[in-house]
Structures are given as structure tokens and as C-alpha cells.
């Protein structure tokens, strides 16, 4: 009798074992991410919807008053790019801004202490950003229906590239959030690197219409492949080879995931 009780206590005091994945821990971290980023839904959704609606309106007014271009064709081309861009922006903010805030408040120890593996942490950051980004993307996509009829040529491609865009920017946000010590650095990288890459990725103009130098540079911009693939999912027309776009999306996401995993494992700028 005694022996049984002692062995029972010893079991409870011993290290707790988790299966291959600590599901409870992952679920908690995800909920925590969502709680932080969804408290202000009304303006995280409304802001992008309004500003992207204004972009579309501008293009319609400008193209119909200044050019003989068909505004419908132009909007059909731009709308998927804007949705993609909205996904990217939100996904980036969710992980990036959240991490810097937590580092400032020193509450990132909450998830550093929790019994989670680096893979689980990286996956939770990527997943929460992807979901948040796709929610904003859905809102912006619904807004574009005011301008163009709904178009889904290849639903699988649409979802794949939406998720790949969200994940990639979620991981970039994670890396940036880990690296940046101040808001300034975060904002500077956003404005001077990410925004130009996203704006000059063929969101607004077909790459074929650009100068040759620009075309050659854009071929090195991963965001171009994501937006091109997403547009293929919506309209059925792609500039780049679809297999190339898929490969770039997968390769870049894997590389970023490995990088984030490495920093989370070593505790770079998190545990010092």
C-alpha cells in the first residue's frame, strides 16, 4: 500500500511527458496570440478595407478620366494583388508588433518558460499570423465585390498562395520581432524594405508593361511569385510559371521557418 502511494507521488513529481506535440501548450500559445491581436478587430479589419477600397476607387476614377483603359480590366488585375498585400501586411504585424511589445513588457518569458519546443513556438507564430492575415484578406476580398464580380478560377491555388503569403510574412514578422530592439528598427525595416518589395511586386501593374531592368529585378522578389500565384487562383492568368511560383513559396517558407526555429532554439535576443 505504502509503496504504491510513494510510486504514485514520484510519478507526479517527475518530469511531465508530452507526446510528439504538446497540443495543450500549442493551443494556449495560439489563443494568447489571438487574444493580443484580435482585441481591436474593428479597426484592424476596417482600416485595410477602407484604404484598399480607396486605392481601387482611385484607379477607377484615374483610369476612366485619363486613359482609354478599361477600368474593369484594371480593377480585375489589381484587386487580387491588394487582397494578397492586405494578408501580408496583417500577418507581418501580428507576429512582429506583438513580439516587440512582449519584449518591451518582458512578458515574452511566458512562452519562453512554457514547455514548448522551438518547432511548436515557430509553428504557432506562423499559424496565428496566417489566420489573422487571411481574415483581413477575406474582408478586403468582400470589399472588392463592390467593384468587380467575384472570381475564383482555381480555389486550391487561391488558398495555397493566400496561406503561403500569410505564413511567409508571419515568419518575417517573427524574425524581425526577435531581432528588433526598438520600435524604430521595426518601423524602419517595414518602411524601407518590406513596403517597397510589396509595392514593386506587380500588385498594380502587369510586369510585362515595366521597363526591362524592373522586370529583371522583380524576378528576384519572392512576393512577386506569391501575388502572381494568388492572382492565378483568382483570375486564371499568371505571368510566371505556376510550378516556379509554388516552388518559391514553399522554399522561402521552409527557409524562413528554419531560420525562426534556429533563433527560437538558441534564444537569440530573447534570453539574453
Amino acid at each position, binding site marked *: 500500500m505504502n509503496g504504491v502511494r510513494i510510486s504514485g507521488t514520484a510519478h507526479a513529481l517527475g518530469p511531465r511527458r508530452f507526446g510528439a506535440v504538446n497540443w495543450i501548450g500549442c493551443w494556449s500559445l495560439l489563443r494568447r496570440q489571438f487574444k493580443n491581436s484580435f482585441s481591436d478587430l474593428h479597426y484592424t479589419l476596417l482600416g485595410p478595407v477602407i484604404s484598399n477600397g*480607396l486605392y481601387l476607387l482611385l484607379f477607377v476614377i484615374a483610369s476612366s478620366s485619363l486613359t482609354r483603359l478599361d477600368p474593369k480590366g484594371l480593377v480585375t488585375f489589381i484587386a487580387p494583388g491588394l487582397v494578397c498585400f492586405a494578408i501580408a501586411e496583417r500577418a507581418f504585424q501580428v507576429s512582429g508588433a506583438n513580439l516587440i511589445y512582449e519584449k518591451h513588457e518582458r512578458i515574452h518569458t511566458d512562452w519562453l518558460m512554457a514547455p514548448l519546443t522551438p518547432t511548436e513556438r515557430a509553428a504557432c507564430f506562423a499559424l496565428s499570423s496566417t489566420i489573422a492575415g487571411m481574415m483581413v484578406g477575406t474582408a478586403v476580398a468582400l470589399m472588392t465585390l463592390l467593384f468587380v464580380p467575384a472570381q475564383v478560377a482555381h480555389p486550391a491555388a487561391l488558398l495555397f498562395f493566400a496561406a503561403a503569403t500569410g505564413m511567409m510574412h508571419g515568419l518575417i514578422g517573427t524574425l524581425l520581432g526577435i531581432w528588433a530592439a526598438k520600435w524604430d528598427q521595426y518601423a524602419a525595416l517595414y518602411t524601407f524594405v518590406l*513596403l517597397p518589395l510589396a509595392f514593386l511586386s506587380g500588385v498594380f501593374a502587369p510586369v510585362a508593361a515595366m521597363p526591362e531592368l524592373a522586370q529583371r529585378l522583380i524576378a528576384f522578389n519572392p512576393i512577386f511569385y506569391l501575388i502572381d500565384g494568388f492572382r492565378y487562383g483568382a483570375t486564371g492568368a499568371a505571368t510566371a510559371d505556376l510550378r516556379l511560383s509554388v516552388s518559391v513559396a514553399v522554399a522561402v517558407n521552409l527557409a524562413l521557418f528554419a531560420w525562426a526555429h534556429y533563433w527560437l532554439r538558441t534564444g537569440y535576443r530573447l534570453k539574453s
Partner: protein
Amino acid sequence: MTTPRVLQPSLAPRHYRTINWVGLSTLYMKEVRRFSSVATQTILAPMVTTLLFLAVFVLALGHAVDQVAGEPYRAFLAPGLIMMAITQNAFANTSSSILISKIQGNIVDLLMPPLTPLERTIGLAGGGLTRGIAVGIATWVAMTPFVPISVAHVGFVLFYALMASLFMSLVGVLAGVWAEKFDHMAAITNFIVTPAAFLSGTFYSAERLPPFWLGVAHANPLFYMIDGFRCGFIGHADGSLTAGVLVLLGANAALLWLTHRLIATGYHLKA
């Protein structure tokens, strides 16, 4: 007998002449240093964003536009974009300064010093005006390699740049005084400032607009700012310049009075 006579003047309330120059310049310099110490974010960042707008619109529409108002599309676009940058940053400077002070609780630094409401208004608006002009000059310089910008009427350029940044600085003061949370400011930016800036005739010529959008443009003070400012560069205005000058002078006088009134009564500041 002599000691009290020496002490008395120093204990009596200090008198200022018509204007407390030391106080006013202190407030103004505080407002300027607030943005110049983070110039990467307050001057360079808007400059880059504006250049991106230029690139996007020239790439998307430039090839299909022959000429607007006798100018290539990018020469038409550039002055409007510079003006957009000026107005948005003038607004951002005053509105964020007041709102952040209110949230952090250091708004007393603005309310306690021996300044008249008019001096406070001028000090705050002066900071916003300076940031607007600084961003305008930076954007102009950054655009010159890409767009040939010539000046037709220097007077117009200066008048509209100053009037527009004063206007938006004062609007920013009003917004900062009214708002109590960052949510409120986000709402003002999303629903008023950004739409007004985008639908102001920066990207298209009002001459060829459908009647509805023409009406929208004429009801928008930013339309007159951009139109007049652009006229200073390309020598052609879409609307009436007299109307523009009158609208801006009238609007600024009214805003100055309203801002002064709110600061004097302490509305949302001293409660």
C-alpha cells in the same frame, strides 16, 4: 528698509510683454525636436512612401496616359504627391503630439507654462507646419531624379505649401484635442484624412471628372491646396485660383479661431 523693496519685484507675478517670446520659442522648438530626433520615421519614411506612390501610378497608368493638362502624367502627379505628403505629415505631427501627451499625462507641460492660448496654438501649429514643409522639401528632392519638376510661379508654391500645412496642422490640433484614444485617431485618419487626401485630385485631373466626383472634389479643401500648389509648378489649374486662395484664407482663419477657442476653454484638455 531696502531689503523688502529688493524682494518685492521678484515675488510679484512676472509680467510679459504682448508675446512671451521665450515661452513660445521653447514650445515651438520642443515640437520641432520631437520629430527631428526621429527623422528616419518622420521625414524619410513619408518620402519613401510618396516615391512608391509615384512609381505605382506611373507604372500602372503612365503608359496609357498621353498628357494631363499638357504635361506628362508623372509631371502632373509629382506636385500633388508632394502636397499630399506635406498635409499628411503636418496633421500627423500636431495630432500625435497632443494625443500622446494626453495619454502619457504630460499635457500639463503644455497647459501650465505662462503662455496665452494663442501662443500655444501658434507653437503647436508651427511645429506641424515645419514638419510638413520639411517632408515636402525632402520629397521634392527625392523626386527630381525621376521627374523633371520645373517651377512656374514660386509665389503660388510657397503660399499653398504654407497655407496647406498650417491648415492640416490646425486640423491635427483639433483632432488631438478631441481624441481620447488611439482608436479615435485611427478612425479620424481612416474615415476623414486618408479619403480626403486620396480623392483630392492628386491622381487625376478634375477637368475630366464625372459630375459627381467633380462635386466631391470641390467640397474638399485639399482639392484647392493640391490644385493651387500644382499650378505653381505646371502653370495650369483645374479649378479657380481665386476660389482656392479665398477658401484657404477663410478656412485657416476659421480653424485658428476654433483651435484658439478650444485651447482657451480647455475642452478635453483640462477636464
